[in-house]
């Protein structure tokens, strides 16, 4: 290791392990010779490698940000199937459908196989030699770029991928790392931070006697669905907890509710205040509540709330009574609460219930402090993209690097990101698949798949202490011309700052050095090599952090009343998040396209959900092609009659409508992002995704909706899915 020009603090920063809790030993000799590994011939395989027998290797799922530990079944050099890794506190040996489809991301026939460079005839394949020359010329040591002239635009990124990225930017004296998430939860996190002092508290779901969820699809598309599902299973065992879900459109989680209420979009905060009003009648709850809150809540008696929300006053009373009777409870808010111009207040009003009910320390705790803040995930927002877009449009951005995000597809049409891209002289995309954004870039670099690359990941939601998850290749790379994201960045860094990075032949050796250097924090007494091998074998290293306590702040809130619907736009428009497609990045995976969306069972398409009564009044039948018109734009989609929706609301799933993401995604369905109105949260500046209003127009055309359900959606008296009343069930006597 060349340490001459690098002091110790810098060195730790290079490795991503500086930070408050990092009390590390000095830089002595280690037993690592970076990058020098024993190469074994396949003719002399290790004892456990037997032809015909699959061997499991641990890694980390990169399909979403939950950081589930996975195991890949590898046989004859091929990865065949993914399972959950029982060592992982997050996945606990379980895995979701999206995670399973990671193998199809890896073996996808539309993977990008060579670098592409934009010439006169558009993007054409070039060699890596050329690509490196271009990179060096633009971003190498002689690059004049400084500060905000360079920007790195990513989706959520964590671990050493984040460290390298930010260290890379630092060599340009830049901190211009822009994290964009088309499904940003920034508003909800801000509200949670304001009330509880933590953006994402830990939810002890299994300890809750009652969960009141305002539109949080925690079992489907929430912050850590596999972990939440595991906790939910415990929650449903004796003594069985009750789930009440309130949302304009039934999510997967809503389908599991004991009681589901359709609410007028945007009135969730008012309902929460109405429930608070009922609770605060009792001294037990009102003790210590500031006068401002009591004053605020005063205006929201049951009848007033019922008028605005569409939830009957009896229901408001019943919900409050159940919260009273079932402690501890847990109240959570989701995208349908956040997605309004007053989304922050809406979500804050929901969080207020947790404070009033005393759920802190019971069902809600703060996450453990991370020993290595540099490794924690960056969480995306919309306004970060909007800021970047402004800079790009003004010609301030000279170079843009894009990784793990596709804003040309997901940005609404009032944010002309593709247009702004043309103002940036040099744009690099790091992708496994050519997508809409890469199509607008100058240099497109083919990445290794998540099953071919090394990496570390840190999840946003850390249920049990802190886990640093390791990702390792489960097989040799399929395409010789693809490269690891870390390797590409490291190569540039080696040229820009050789004194810090020249010692690392590749990303693997960098990771290994960084992890081994962090060993003391994980309180492992093994030799360095053992520690590293154990980490790879287990797929993670654990740090025994303890949950922290949450604060309770009761800021003054104002809760606006949503504007009435108008005759021009008589419907609320609610975009729904599919647990498998998410923001649309997974639309190229055929298993997921053919996997029926659970609530509707529709496959390979977009559709618009409309309540049967509304449809009847408008004489709309399933399969009628409707034009969905907002003030911003319109799309056409087939009608699907769906009882789990508030009758003045229509809903469309996000994720389809790609023009460029391989054969399985292109031309399937339409893209509802493009009709979202430019309405933003007052507090956070986030796009208010649930605030758009639309008109429906019948086109007179009709097509069959391709779906899995048969002609009836009822059981017709057969005992298919029987339901037992909870008071009759004898769960405690069951095995």
């Amino acid at each position: 290791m060349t340490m001459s020009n690098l002091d110790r603090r810098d060195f730790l920063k290079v490795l991503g392990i500086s930070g408050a809790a990092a009390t590390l030993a000095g830089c002595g000799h280690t037993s690592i010779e970076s990058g020098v590994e024993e190469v074994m011939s396949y003719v002399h395989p290790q004892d456990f490698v037997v032809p015909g027998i699959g061997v499991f290797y641990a890694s980390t799922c990169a399909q979403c940000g939950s950081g589930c530990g996975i195991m890949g079944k590898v046989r004859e050099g091929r990865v065949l199937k993914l399972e959950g890794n029982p060592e992982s506190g997050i996945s606990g040996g379980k895995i979701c459908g999206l995670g399973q489809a990671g193998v199809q991301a890896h073996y996808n026939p539309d993977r990008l196989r060579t670098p592409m460079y934009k010439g006169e005839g558009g993007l054409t394949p070039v060699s890596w030699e050329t690509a490196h020359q271009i990179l060096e010329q633009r971003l190498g040591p002689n690059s004049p770029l400084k500060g905000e002239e360079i920007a790195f635009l990513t989706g959520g990124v964590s671990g050493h991928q984040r460290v390298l990225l930010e260290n890379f930017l630092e060599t340009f004296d830049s901190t211009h790392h822009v994290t964009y998430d088309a499904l940003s939860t920034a508003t909800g996190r801000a509200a949670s931070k304001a009330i509880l002092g933590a953006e994402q508290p830990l939810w002890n779901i299994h300890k809750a006697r009652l969960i009141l969820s305002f539109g949080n699809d925690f079992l489907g598309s929430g912050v850590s669905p596999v972990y939440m599902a595991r906790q939910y299973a415990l929650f449903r065992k004796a003594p069985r907890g009750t789930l009440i879900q309130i949302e304009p459109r039934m999510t997967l989680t809503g389908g599991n509710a004991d009681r589901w209420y359709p609410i007028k979009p945007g009135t969730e905060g008012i309902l929460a205040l109405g429930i608070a009003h009922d609770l605060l009648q009792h001294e037990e709850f009102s003790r210590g509540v500031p006068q401002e809150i009591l004053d605020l809540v005063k205006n929201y008696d049951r009848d007033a709330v019922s008028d605005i929300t569409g939830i009957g006053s009896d229901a408001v009373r019943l919900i409050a009574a159940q919260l009273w009777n079932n402690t501890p409870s847990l109240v959570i808010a989701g995208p349908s609460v956040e997605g309004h111009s007053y989304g922050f207040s809406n979500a804050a009003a929901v969080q207020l219930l947790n404070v009033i009910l005393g759920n802190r320390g019971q069902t809600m705790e703060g996450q453990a402090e991370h020993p290595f803040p540099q490794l924690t995930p960056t969480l995306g927002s919309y306004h970060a993209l909007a800021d970047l877009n402004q800079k790009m449009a003004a010609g301030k951005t000279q170079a843009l690097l894009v990784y793990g995000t596709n804003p040309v597809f997901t940005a609404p049409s009032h944010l002309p990101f593709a247009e702004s891209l043309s103002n940036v002289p040099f744009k690099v995309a790091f992708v496994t698949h050519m997508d809409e954004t890469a199509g607008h870039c100058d240099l497109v670099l083919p990445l290794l798949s998540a099953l071919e690359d090394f990496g570390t990941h840190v999840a946003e939601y850390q249920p049990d202490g802190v886990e640093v998850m390791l990702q390792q290749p489960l097989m040799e790379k399929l395409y010789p011309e693809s490269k690891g994201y870390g390797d590409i960045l490291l190569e540039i860094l080696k040229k820009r700052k050789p004194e810090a990075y020249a010692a690392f032949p590749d990303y693997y050796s960098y990771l290994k050095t960084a992890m081994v250097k962090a060993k003391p924090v994980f309180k492992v007494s093994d030799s360095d090599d053992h520690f590293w091998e154990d980490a790879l074998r287990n797929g993670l290293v654990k740090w025994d952090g303890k949950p922290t306590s949450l604060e309770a702040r009761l800021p003054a809130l104002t809760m606006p009343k949503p504007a009435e619907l108008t005759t021009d736009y008589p419907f609320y428009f609610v975009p729904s998040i599919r647990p498998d497609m998410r923001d649309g990045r997974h639309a190229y995976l055929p298993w997921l396209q053919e996997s029926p969306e659970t609530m509707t069972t529709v496959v390979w398409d977009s559709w618009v959900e409309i309540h049967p009564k509304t449809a009847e009044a408008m004489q709309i039948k399933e399969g009628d092609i409707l034009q969905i018109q907002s003030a911003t734009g319109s799309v056409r989609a087939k009608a699907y009659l769906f009882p789990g929706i508030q009758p003045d609301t229509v809903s469309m799933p996000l994720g389809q409508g790609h023009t460029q993401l391989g054969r399985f995604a292109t031309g399937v369905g339409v893209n509802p992002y493009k009709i979202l109105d430019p309405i933003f949260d007052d507090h956070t500046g986030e796009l208010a995704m649930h605030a758009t209003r639309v008109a429906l127009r019948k086109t007179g055309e009709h097509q069959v909706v391709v779906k899995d359900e048969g002609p009836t959606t009822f059981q017709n008296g057969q005992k298919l899915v029987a339901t037992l009343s909870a008071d009759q069930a004898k769960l405690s006597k069951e095995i």
Partner: protein
Amino acid sequence: MSLSNLIQNWNSFRTRRPYEGQYDDAPYKWAMVIDLDSCIGCNACTVACYAENNLPVVGKERFGKGQAMHWIRIERYWGEGDTMTSEFPDHGAQYLPMLCQQCEAAPCEPVCPVGATHHSPDGLNTQVYNRCVGSRYCSANCPYKVRYFNWWNYPDRAWPNPLELQLNPDVTVRSKGVMEKCTFCMQRLRAGMDKAKTEGRILADGEVLTACAQACPTSAITFGNLADKKSKVARMWKNQQVDLAKDSQEKSEEGIRGYRILEELNTYPSIVYLERVRNLEA
């Protein structure tokens, strides 16, 4: 041959199977319990099945013709009668993971003219691909609609290179003209049973799981050996008072959730479902 086969099969199944104590001396009888109160409808099981069993993706057009090949699917219902009882699904949706019920007296078996579908000694309803001539009688006779016919030669088109590298070498890739269905991950069972046999023992409880049970995030699916009275699945069947060899179950008290779907058709399924529970007061 086919008619005599048919009659012979029919007789054997209608008169001999199932009977009390049928598996008392057998090492294995594979069975399942699916807890509908834990099932959240997430589709992890269905995708796991595609990955494990080389199920082809058929595309929109063929899916629309009812040619999807999902051996396990999540059915979603809105009511128990023939209409909704209220304007909204007040107590959520009803999710039902539906797969081959591995019936002990399987309606699909006696109608096969060539004996391609038959009963294995460990209680599975198996499909022998290279005997199947594609009459599709079995599918017509299956009340659960969990048999899937290869209308097309999927190896030609369902796995464009290099997707075929993901195919599980332990599972046949089926060609045009044969029927297929859930096997309870026969390849996993076979490998496990062979290994156990080599070691002179029977499989331990939980040693082999089906792909769906292994993936299921809520552990709603319990899989195991009903012949082993100590296995979790056997204890659950007993606890839920479901008897494999009876076509209607007597329960000692109210509130016991176990039932078998369409049991009244005398199919004697090997899957017990546990009723979904809802707090109807909420």
